[in-house]
């Protein structure tokens, strides 16, 4: 019997026991209530108090034992765990039953427990961030140790194919050592991000201006959900669309102009990614444009300017910080986007300025390194964490800058 099963069995025992204890205690407390004595807390609160006091210690024991077992640190004998739980439940019940009295402040005690639960729940998100940072950092450090941080950041040749040899203890056999220069990968990422922004920024911004300044309320009501549909389409679907439909179109269009394009060109994932980001750009800009006070607009219009002149001369400059932050968030989204580039961009790192050639991105290399059949400590697998580290830092910086800018903007107008 595994400890995992055991935990479920014991929990199955604790829950009914706790229910019985709840009934007994709240009956006891309602007797006082019926005698019209003064009673500080309602009977059910006394019940909950006993439930907490009898079940929490044993659940904690179970969780700790389970954690130790799952992480492989130490496996406690199941019998000891069960015995400890039974003793704790019995002691808790006896103690709780003695403790309660009409004057006992059960409600305050129970609510305190609730509050700690809520705090624990909000710590989960902090733990998630910590988990992401630490899990990436540790593996990334191992990778940088082996490759060298500056070689990784400034090297122009990415050639991990022989990495498995050293993983298999045959490092000397390889003719050429594996190289991990990430510049071509960064270049590909920025190229595709740049193309995506060329699509998303003008279209998103102009849509936002039109919706905020010109569109009737009815048109707004229809168009905003329709734009949200673009945002709700899964990226894997966009990836399929980019690979199957847009790439051949790009190749044909290039051939029409006498140019040669790869089927894994950077242009098609870039364009499709731009389409995907339009709703993000437009809804964030729409929010800030709407946050610009109406009085500023009316002041400008009263001087006889047209709506376009007001928008260009007054509204957009006022909303500029918000628009910049929308832009930064969109860039961060584009850099971290995975499925579109995995399906439509190339696998080969390629340092070029020609968007019609195939190039690869950080996220593509991460997926490629981790879905192959390399062992977990091979250098290529670790390279995924090195790239993930760069991706994390980049997106964190972009997100934080955009948060700060937008907060400054809000402080100014709200």
């Amino acid at each position, binding site marked *: 019997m595994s400890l995992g099963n055991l935990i479920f069995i014991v929990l199955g025992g604790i829950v009914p026991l706790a229910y019985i204890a709840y009934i007994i205690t709240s009956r006891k407390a309602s007797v006082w209530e019926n005698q019209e004595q003064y009673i500080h807390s309602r009977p059910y609160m006394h019940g909950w108090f006993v439930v907490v006091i009898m079940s929490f210690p044993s659940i904690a024991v179970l969780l700790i034992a389970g954690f130790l077992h*799952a*992480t*492989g640190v130490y496996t406690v004998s199941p019998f000891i765990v069960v015995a400890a739980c039974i003793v704790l439940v019995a002691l808790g019940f006896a103690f709780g039953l003695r403790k309660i009295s009409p004057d006992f402040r059960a409600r305050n005690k129970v*609510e305190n427990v*609730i*509050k700690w*639960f*809520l*705090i624990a*729940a*909000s710590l989960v*998100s*902090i733990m*998630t*961030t910590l988990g*992401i940072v630490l899990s*990436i950092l540790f593996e990334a450090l191992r990778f940088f140790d082996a490759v060298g941080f500056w070689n990784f950041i400034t090297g122009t040749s990415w050639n991990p194919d022989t990495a498995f040899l050293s993983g298999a203890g045959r490092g000397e056999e390889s003719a050429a050592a594996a190289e991990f220069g990430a510049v071509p990968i960064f270049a590909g990422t920025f190229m595709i991000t740049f193309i995506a922004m060329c699509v998303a920024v*003008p*279209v998103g*911004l*102009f*849509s936002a201006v*039109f*919706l905020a300044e*010109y569109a009737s309320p009815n048109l707004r009501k229809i168009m905003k959900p*329709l734009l*949200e549909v*673009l945002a*709700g*389409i*899964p*990226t894997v*679907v966009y*990836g*399929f669309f980019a*690979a199957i*439909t847009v790439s051949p179109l790009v190749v044909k269009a290039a051939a029409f102009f006498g140019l040669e394009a790869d089927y894994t060109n950077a242009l098609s994932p870039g364009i499709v990614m731009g389409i995907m980001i*339009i*709703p993000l750009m437009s809804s964030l800009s729409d929010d800030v444009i709407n946050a610009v006070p109406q009085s500023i607009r009316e002041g400008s219009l009263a001087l006889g300017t*047209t*709506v*376009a*002149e007001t928008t260009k001369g007054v509204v957009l400059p006022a909303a500029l910080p918000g628009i910049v932050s929308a832009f930064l968030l969109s860039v961060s*989204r584009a850099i971290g986007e*995975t*499925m579109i580039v*995995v*399906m439509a961009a190339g696998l080969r790192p390629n340092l070029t300025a020609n968007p019609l050639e195939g190039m690869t991105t950080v*996220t593509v290399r*991460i*997926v490629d390194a*981790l*879905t192959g059949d390399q062992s*977990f400590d091979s250098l290529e697998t670790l390279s995924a*964490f090195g790239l*993930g580290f760069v991706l*994390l830092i980049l*997106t964190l910086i972009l997100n*934080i800058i955009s*948060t700060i800018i937008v907060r400054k903007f809000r402080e100014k107008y709200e």
Partner: protein
Amino acid sequence: MSSLIESSQANRKRYKAEKRFKFYGFFALLLSMGFLIFFLTDIVIRGYTAFRQAEIKAEISYSKETVEIPPLAVNEEARDFASRGFVRMIPLQVENNPELMGDTVVQWIVANDDVDQYIKGKPNGLSDSEKQKIDKLKKEGKIKLSFNEHFFINGDSKLPEISGIFSAAVGTIYVIILTVLFSVPIGVMSAIYLEEYAPDNMFTRAIEVNINNLAAIPSILFGLLGLAVFINFFGVPRSSSLAGGLTLSLMTLPVIIISTRASLQAVPDSIRHGALAVGASKWQMIWHHILPVSVPGILTGTILGVARAMGETAPLLLVGMMAYIPEVPNSFTDAATVLPAQIYTWASASQRAYVERTAAAIIVLLAVLLTLNAVAIWLRNKNEKKW
């Protein structure tokens, strides 16, 4: 006076600029709608044919010999065109129904993917003589297209003609159940803490900044977390819906926290004060008065979070949920795959017939997601309460 102003050269220019500016905005909107329509029609045109499947009328003779060499059971005319998925089941059929032995049955059986693609007028790997044979069979009424139920009741297969989305759909349901189970209670609890309890100090602000950051972190990094923490550290089975569900719930958590906070904020303070004034404790106020009125908002956020999690692929690839899984998973620790991952594997498969199946799976996924989003929008509009 006014006609004087309007007729002046400079003003005419200004009004033209105004019109141009408005047109740019309108054009941008039109462009995004154009993308949407082009995209949807493209997917539907590619995919709708997969809902029908070519079948061929064949004589199946069950004998000792044909159990040994199953292809011989199919009459010669249809032999090359029958799906191997049907042919290899012949010995099993006999095993289950021994009375079939010695019989000859005429029935419609699934044709292979090349025939299917040829009938639908798509690129295929058939030779000219094979095409002529099929044309002849078609004239005799021995080949037809009928509703492709395999697509909905089968799992993945190496043979496009009998591969389906069922196991992936079950995997998606498993993953979503786990995601909701983990992320909704924790998300709602932390939103309640931040909105109702938390004092305005450094710690609280750190949590808030952190949640906003988490919402903007690329999803693939959650995959790295899932791989390093859940699989390598805690030993959760790779490719299991448990690993996927845990990873996705961490990703959905910020969405749920943010939307729950918004709906808690929308509850006016008068309700809080009223409850406290009649002697309710803080938790009683939250549980009896604040939460019930904010349920629609929480629900809307949950649906949007679920819709996002349902379409997510990248983190699931990293925790191994893209493996070839023909069987329906039986438990949360079985290897499973999800619809988007199935779309990804089919999209990278080499047989041509998978293209339309990929598009068909996309149609199914989009139908579900758009319904979810529509429900969320409807809920939001319906419950937009003005206090």
